[in-house]
């Protein structure tokens, strides 16, 4: 295969450009796939950190726009096997900072019970009504710091804490006291969720069954609520990103094919010469396939490296994004690239294979 190898590296510029084309295409596929994977992770981050294993939501809502009367909390506490019942208000709002507008997810909670931020970068939890803990990424992006004031829905709040891990690229979390959230959203004596923890020895499923009797509320396993939220969120925000990822996958694969196809076409003459000096078709195909495979593999390798580096760069400059490039997706992208490359190379090879050696030198 020394012919193949020598031929391949003979023209360094062309080899470089071919590899670059393949690498960028692979990078594209992996970055967009990483966006989608990261979004899936971010969506459930609050619920995963919230207390309890069973969640009470308004009957029939499966969690969307759930409104429960406050009495539900006491009702839950009176059920045997309940360790704690934590009410939480969860509502979207628009944070209007003059120059920019941003959707935020407002969580109203009781700091003594839980359901608030799980990792503070700095500051404290809200004590007074007008105090909030803001997601650190949101605060940094909008130039807000500890002790700064801002306005939300016509009321003034003060940032007393900055939290970590509380952002998605669509929204960020904002934590305030439960009663303040109730007042802010004009829904006094209500709650959105009640997070229920089980006493020792009770499984989540058993707990759920015991809570089934509470009027006006459905008891869901928290894992089920996470799955439903993920589906809802993704059907809302995920469609465009999934569409983009699909198109990127298609474009990336086609670009790999195009690059290799052209690179092979350019060498038709050389392959013709091989034929003219007596090489059999099988040998021809082997040379061609090997060249394509090498270009694709090197390109995939470089592309995966590029994807990892650029993912880190994007997340460093725009921390609201989470891009997870997983080994499994890198491998499948490389596999697809390889298949496409070999297929794209064999087409022009077939053309040469069908020529008689004399034809090669005729133009």
């Amino acid at each position, binding site marked *: 295969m020394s012919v193949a190898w020598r031929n391949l590296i003979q023209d360094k510029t062309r080899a470089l450009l071919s590899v670059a084309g393949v690498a*960028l295409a692979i990078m594209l596929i992996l970055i967009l796939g990483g966006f989608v994977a990261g979004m899936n992770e971010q969506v459930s981050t609050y619920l995963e950190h919230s207390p309890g294993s069973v969640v009470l939501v308004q009957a029939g809502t499966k969690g969307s726009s759930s409104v429960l009367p406050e009495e539900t909390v006491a009702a839950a506490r009176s059920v045997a096997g309940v360790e704690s019942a934590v009410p939480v208000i969860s509502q979207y709002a628009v944070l209007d900072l003059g120059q920019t507008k941003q959707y935020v997810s407002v969580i109203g909670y009781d700091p003594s019970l839980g359901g608030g931020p799980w990792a503070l970068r700095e500051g404290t939890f809200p004590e007074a009504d007008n105090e909030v803990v803001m997601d650190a990424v949101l605060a940094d992006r909008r130039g807000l710091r500890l002790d700064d004031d801002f306005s939300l829905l016509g009321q003034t709040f003060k940032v007393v804490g900055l939290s970590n891990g509380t952002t998605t690229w669509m929204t960020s979390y904002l934590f305030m006291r439960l009663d303040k959230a109730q007042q802010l959203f004009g829904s006094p004596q209500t709650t959105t969720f009640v997070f229920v923890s089980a006493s020792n020895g009770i499984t989540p499923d058993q707990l759920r069954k015991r809570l089934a009797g509470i009027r006006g509320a459905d008891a869901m396993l928290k894992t089920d609520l996470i799955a439903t939220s993920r589906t809802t969120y993704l059907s809302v925000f995920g469609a465009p990103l999934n569409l983009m990822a699909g198109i990127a996958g298609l474009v990336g694969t086609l670009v790999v094919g195009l690059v290799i196809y052209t690179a092979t076409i350019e060498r038709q003459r050389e392959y013709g010469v091989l034929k003219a000096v007596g090489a059999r078709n099988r040998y021809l195909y082997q040379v061609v396939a090997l060249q394509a495979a090498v270009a694709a593999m090197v390109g995939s390798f470089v592309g995966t490296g590029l994807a990892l580096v650029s993912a880190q760069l994007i997340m460093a400059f725009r921390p609201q994004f989470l891009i997870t490039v997983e080994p499994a997706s890198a491998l499948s992208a490389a596999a697809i690239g390889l298949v496409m490359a070999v297929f794209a190379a064999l087409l022009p090879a077939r053309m040469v294979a069908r020529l008689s050696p004399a034809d090669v030198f005729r133009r």
Partner: protein
Amino acid sequence: MLLLALRNLFEGKARFVMSTAGLGLALLLVLVLDAIWAGSESQISAYIDRSGADVWVAQQGVRNMHMASSSLPVTTVPDVELVPGVRSVTPILYVLGTINTPNANQLAYVIGLPPSPAAGTPWAVVKGAGVPRSGEAIIDRTVASNAGVDVGGVITVLNHRFTVVGLTAGTLNIVNSIAFISLGDFMALRRSQATISYLLVRTAAGSSPSSVRTAIERQVPGVTALTTAEFSEQERAVVAGMSTDVVAIMNLVGLLIGLAVMALSTYTAVLSRRSEFGVLKALGARNADLYVVVIVQTAIALAFGLAVGIALTWLLSVGIPLVKPSLALEMTPASLAKVTSMALVIAVLAAILPVWQLARLDPAIVFRRKVA
């Protein structure tokens, strides 16, 4: 020279296809993402844009509908009616709720309309009534067909059963659909007659919406008033804010891919014609003349690539909503302008390599080697 450029171009058919297709695909990435965001922005402000209102009145500090909640005392209605320049005031209640369908709970903005509303009604009623009375609901036709319900059927909205009396179009977007029930029913569900969400104001002939808007804010306490155009802009602004970073990343990636593909193409094009160019040089052609050949080729590939990218995006913008009605793709002039300048940048950068190749091409090479 032009003839040479053209002949050169079309002889390398594969190369031409690759540069055109590759550039087209790279630009497609940018165009489609732009179109998705533009489509979402239009959808999100659709109700506001088509409401028929001139001024919107909301709770003080509230400047959005989507993901927002506004609460005004009912007494605001007569207060606003007294403001000079106001022709009619339509109060609505509004909440993000769910329509229960067999498959899943669909998110819906539920709007409570008063009887004989002067504004705020669905703008494209495809079947049945356009204003709901007590016990009745008007829903989006796609949601209805997904739920297996037609006019006369029963649907669950906000956990209560309503009879479907009308089906609408244009009320479905990427986030949710819009459903209409009567204001009275809405208040009964809330168990409160005391509050409403927004006031849709129509101005009298001869009064400008912005002057009425200012007058309302001055005369009526505790409200924020916006013209329909301003309100719509505020809605779109939130979506636009989400898109900037993602679009910037895609622009960069599209640019790089387009550049790599074009550079490879033009490089191999010149490379395979080295002997021809060498002969020309030997015959006295200046480098500048040869550059012109390359530039013309690149310009033609650019034009075709741009056309391919735009055509493919147009196809997707027509095809995708057929498959998934909640997705809308909109190609905007701004997006087209951006992509055209990207293509120009790619073409200029991609031409640098062959220009360099030609400059150092030694005419004598023609006589030394046969195979390019």
